[in-house]
């Protein structure tokens, strides 16, 4: 099976600090993959290297077999990778519908078409009743759903989610988990989740990749990884 996304030896430095060192892994079509690790492990940097916000200093990123290393964020999106932001970045002075329309315009010039898409994706993420609210008036959780709906409207093959659970209540985390499952099952979109809270991402993921100090230290099924000694040490520290 050929991979949807492949990283080969990706390295990213900021001055003397190596944020990612020689990271290699694959994400296959139809998977939910968790990218986990303690704070400062380099997850967000790696995420930004995939999404086109950073250009890696070494290594390659392939999407559907195509070398996309150093591509701009907008180009990456057009190829079929969408992302959400850890700190929500919604267009506060636009309505929910208009926010999602910006995403839908990725594939069309027609305003009426984009508006229909916005209704469909707005409803899918649970904002069907708030399409004409200003995005700035939404709660944090709703703004996160909006980011998701907006990203989905670009019709991605791969969805990258950065710390989607941070700041949510238990009930909201539950609906987020359900939503992510539906994205995979109903829409057939592959999902890569960056998360540092292990207990949420473990049951949700088909596979997890663990980063520590910028390096991949483990990869596999959640139950295997959670027994891995290096992972336990990274999270709990040395005895």
């Amino acid at each position, binding site marked *: 099976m050929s991979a949807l996304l492949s990283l080969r030896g990706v390295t990213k430095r900021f001055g003397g600090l190596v944020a990612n060192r020689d990271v290699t892994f694959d994400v296959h079509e139809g998977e939910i993959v968790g990218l986990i690790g303690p704070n400062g492990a380099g997850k967000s940097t790696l995420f930004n290297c995939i999404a086109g916000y950073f250009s890696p200093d070494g290594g390659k990123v392939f999407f559907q077999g195509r070398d996309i290393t150093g591509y701009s964020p907008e180009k990456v999106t057009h190829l079929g990778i969408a992302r959400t932001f850890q700190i929500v970045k919604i267009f506060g002075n636009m309505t929910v519908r208009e926010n999602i*329309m910006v995403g839908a315009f990725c594939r069309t010039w027609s305003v009426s*078409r984009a508006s229909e898409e916005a209704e469909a994706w707005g409803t899918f993420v649970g904002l069907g009743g708030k399409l004409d609210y200003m995005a700035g008036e939404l709660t944090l959780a709703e703004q996160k759903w909006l980011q998701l709906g907006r990203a989905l409207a670009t019709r991605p093959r791969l969805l990258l989610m950065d710390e989607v659970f941070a700041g949510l209540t238990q009930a909201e985390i539950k609906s987020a988990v359900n939503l992510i499952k539906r994205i995979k099952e109903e829409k057939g979109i592959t999902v890569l989740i960056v998360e540092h809270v292990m207990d949420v991402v473990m049951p949700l993921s088909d596979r997890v990749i663990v980063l520590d100090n910028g390096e991949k230290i483990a990869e596999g099924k959640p139950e295997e990884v959670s027994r891995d000694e290096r992972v336990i040490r990274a999270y709990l520290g040395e005895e």
Partner: protein
Amino acid sequence: MNLTGLFLIRKEELNLRSLLFTLGGVFLALAYPFVFRKPFPQDLLIKVLLFAFLGNAWNILGGLAGQVSLGHAMFFGLGAYTSTLLFLNFGVSPWVGLVAGAFLAGVVSIILGYPSFKLKGHYFAMITIAFGEVFHILFRNVDAVGGASGLFLPILDESFGNFYFGVNKIPYLYIILSFYLLSTLTIFLLDRSKVGFYLRAINSEEDAARSLGVNSALYKSVAMFFSALFTAMGGTFYAQYVTFIDPPSVYHLMLSIQIVLIVILGGVGTLFGPLVGAAVLIPLSEFTRIYLGGTGRGYDLIIYGLLIIVFAVYQPTGLMGLIRRRK
């Protein structure tokens, strides 16, 4: 492709009331010179419409895309100088000069926009000041384009083809009115198309816009292109109307700032804000000039400054925001 699908026109924008409102406004402007027959009030409306037009042009880049330019005089000057130089040196019709100037300003805006858009916020505003001043100094020092003494347009037969009507101000009024309406319609449609959505998204959260596939550099350039194009048309109009141009009158930093102040006062990013802002500020500056005479130069700017402070503190959305709140 279904063309009507390209624009989001809401029903409430096309109802009878807004149609009557618009037609009424146009009718008033058309009838104005027959009510006010003296040159001064006619000149006043022409200047108001010229600055409303320039404000509209600025608003495409500053209001929609959120890129504050303090150098728009360079496009105004390019329009004024291109048509004038083409006419003086080659006898080219000012109408052709108008198109040439607009196109040249558009091209220049793309060339200068490429490095400038790498800068954000204040830094973008600062580099536009620098580019504006480069044009100002360049034209003041190159004798081939008139240098510091400027250029006079000769007296011609009064005709539409010559874009010259002597002391008759009515044709000038109608021409600038059509320019203004053209720019307003362009913004109305642009704002309701994919481009408008993209510009507002860039304005609001550029990183998020890019994550949704918005090529922000490209769309900012598109906004700057249209903005420069219209501004240059205003420059050609000015040259034909005043028949004398020199660097201080068409390339001055104060002109750039005046355009921005008008839009801020009227309402940044609003369709009729520039008209409202110009209708307040232009008479203000004309009257202070008259009543305070030659020594009064600059007093209008003091009042401008005070108004801006008051608006920034109490009414950041401008006069249009005030009108909207009343509804």
